């Protein structure tokens, strides 16, 4: 049998309803007009403007001056901080995302049990996700880990901990996914003599794979965007020795502290390409391990 694996996103765009009543489609455009204005003026337009700016030298106050590939060349071949930023971000993403997802899945499995307290526990684990992006918590981190933030490796570790601390967001998504797995599967496995570990590998993981995939993609993209913690903990410098110079922080520094908008635009496009590439790769690998119910193979 064939396994049809659509990209998960595509399933959301359902087939259009049949047109049963003779209403003008123009009414739809009325509803869509704020969204359309936003899409054109604040998303698509700016992306093109950004592409143009990335080939210029621009300081916000004088007109952009065309410099060709200069920004990209300097960025990729001359600027050591750029590569430091790439390295710091890559390290952060590669460590924080897997650790956070494992913690999230572990806790979701732990609290997935009939109990009056489950709702409370779920909320308690989720709470850090609502607070974690705040300057308040970043300042707490700065004080609590104040012995660590002078040391390059440990400063990054403190930020990884801050990210992992917010595992409640993927956890509640895992939990909702777990609750959709029919109990009969586990009962049947138990009858066949499968232990909990085998049941986990043979039932939980495949049944949960679309949710794992969803969390993996969103968390990876989220990790690329972390800014507040790095800014607050390093005092906006990305130090010590660029160890917490996250890409977004360096982008901010170039664009809004040094007003090198052309250069920062080139950095933005580079980030966009990297994220698109990684997301594309993740979708590629998904064919091998993500199973959607309904297409049993």
């Amino acid at each position, binding site marked *: 049998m064939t396994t049809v694996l659509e990209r998960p*996103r*595509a399933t959301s*765009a*359902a087939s*259009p*309803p049949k*047109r049963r*009543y003779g*209403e003008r489609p123009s*009414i*739809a455009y009325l*509803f*869509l007009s*704020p*969204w359309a204005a*936003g899409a054109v*003026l*604040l*998303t698509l337009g*700016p992306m093109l*403007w950004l592409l143009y700016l990335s080939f210029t030298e*621009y300081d*916000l106050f004088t007109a952009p001056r065309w410099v060709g590939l200069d920004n990209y060349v300097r960025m990729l071949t001359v600027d050591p901080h750029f590569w430091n930023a790439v390295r710091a971000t890559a390290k952060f993403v590669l460590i924080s995302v897997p650790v956070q997802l494992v913690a999230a899945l572990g806790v979701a499995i*732990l*609290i997935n049990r009939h109990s009056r307290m489950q709702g409370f526990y779920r*909320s308690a*684990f*989720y709470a*850090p996700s*609502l*607070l974690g*992006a*705040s*300057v*308040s*918590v970043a*300042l707490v981190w*700065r*004080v*609590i880990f104040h012995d660590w933030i002078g040391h390059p490796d440990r400063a990054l570790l403190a930020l990884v901990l801050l990210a992992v601390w917010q595992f409640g*967001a993927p956890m*509640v998504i895992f939990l*909702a*996914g777990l609750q959709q797995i029919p109990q009969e599967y586990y009962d049947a496995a138990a009858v066949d003599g499968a232990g909990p570990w085998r049941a986990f590998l043979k039932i939980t993981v495949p049944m949960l794979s679309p*949710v794992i995939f969803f969390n993996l993609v969103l968390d990876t993209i989220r990790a*690329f*965007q972390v*800014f507040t913690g790095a800014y607050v903990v390093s005092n*906006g410098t990305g130090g010590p020795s660029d160890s917490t110079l996250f890409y*977004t922080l360096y*982008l*901010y520094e170039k*664009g*809004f502290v040094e007003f090198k908008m052309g250069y920062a*635009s080139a950095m*933005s*496009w580079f*980030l*966009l390409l990297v994220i698109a590439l990684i*997301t594309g790769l993740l979708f590629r690998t998904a064919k091998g391990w993500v199973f959607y119910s309904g297409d049993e193979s």
Partner: protein
Amino acid sequence: MTGRLRLAGWHLAVALLLIPLLYPIAWLAFASFKSGSEIVQSLALLPQEYILDNYRALSDDLAGVPVWQFFVNSTVVATGCAIANIASCSLAAYAFARLRFRLRGVLFAFTLATIMLPVHIITIPQYSLFQKLGMVDTFWPLILPKLLATDAFFIFLMVQFMRTIPRELDEAARLDGCGSIRIFRSVVLPLVRPALVTTAIFTFIWTWNDFFTQLIYLSSPENLTLPLALRLFIDTTDHNAFGPMLALSALAIVPILLFFAAFQRLLVEGFATSGLKG
């Protein structure tokens, strides 16, 4: 008997995980009553001596502006964004969920893709646009994008919710002679209230916490929001400033905790189901 023991063990295991997890928040609450020197010297939870000086210090101006002004600014921005998101996203969501128009699938896919677009990437051109409009150092660059439905996550959330409404309801209303606008207002909106509330609270909290965008756009002391006011403390190496810094940090998360306490079920479930149908 073993069942009971197992259950107790389960509660114990969960509690052992929750304690370190919630420690930083509890620590912040208590540390705001500690003296500056005690804050740097120990990570103990309870103060040796409770003092109110940190909170009293907040009655002084910060950067020449009374501290309550930062609360007002944050409230205005977060409330404005919440209202804007409800209005614009529900309009767009209704069109995507119920109406027919050309390229609907493509446009919806585009909207979903923008959920994954990092805000930092389009900040530079947007900034240059708002600068030309003379809106830098006002609240408009923060609120206007929400009025134009750029928060695709909430469109998605509402579309998911609207799809659960039986189509028969719309059709009955249509047979009664209602147009789309009437149906939207009188049938759909009341039924998706939970999604609207979820949108409002999430937008409020996320905007309240947002640092990056506010850092870029707001600069005059009287326009600063709470995250930016807290930033004023970052440079300080003076231990005496640590107390007021943590007192303001604690006050700044109170609204989030209150919203969360009041709407936790709605928030957690709204967030969880958005992931499932992705």
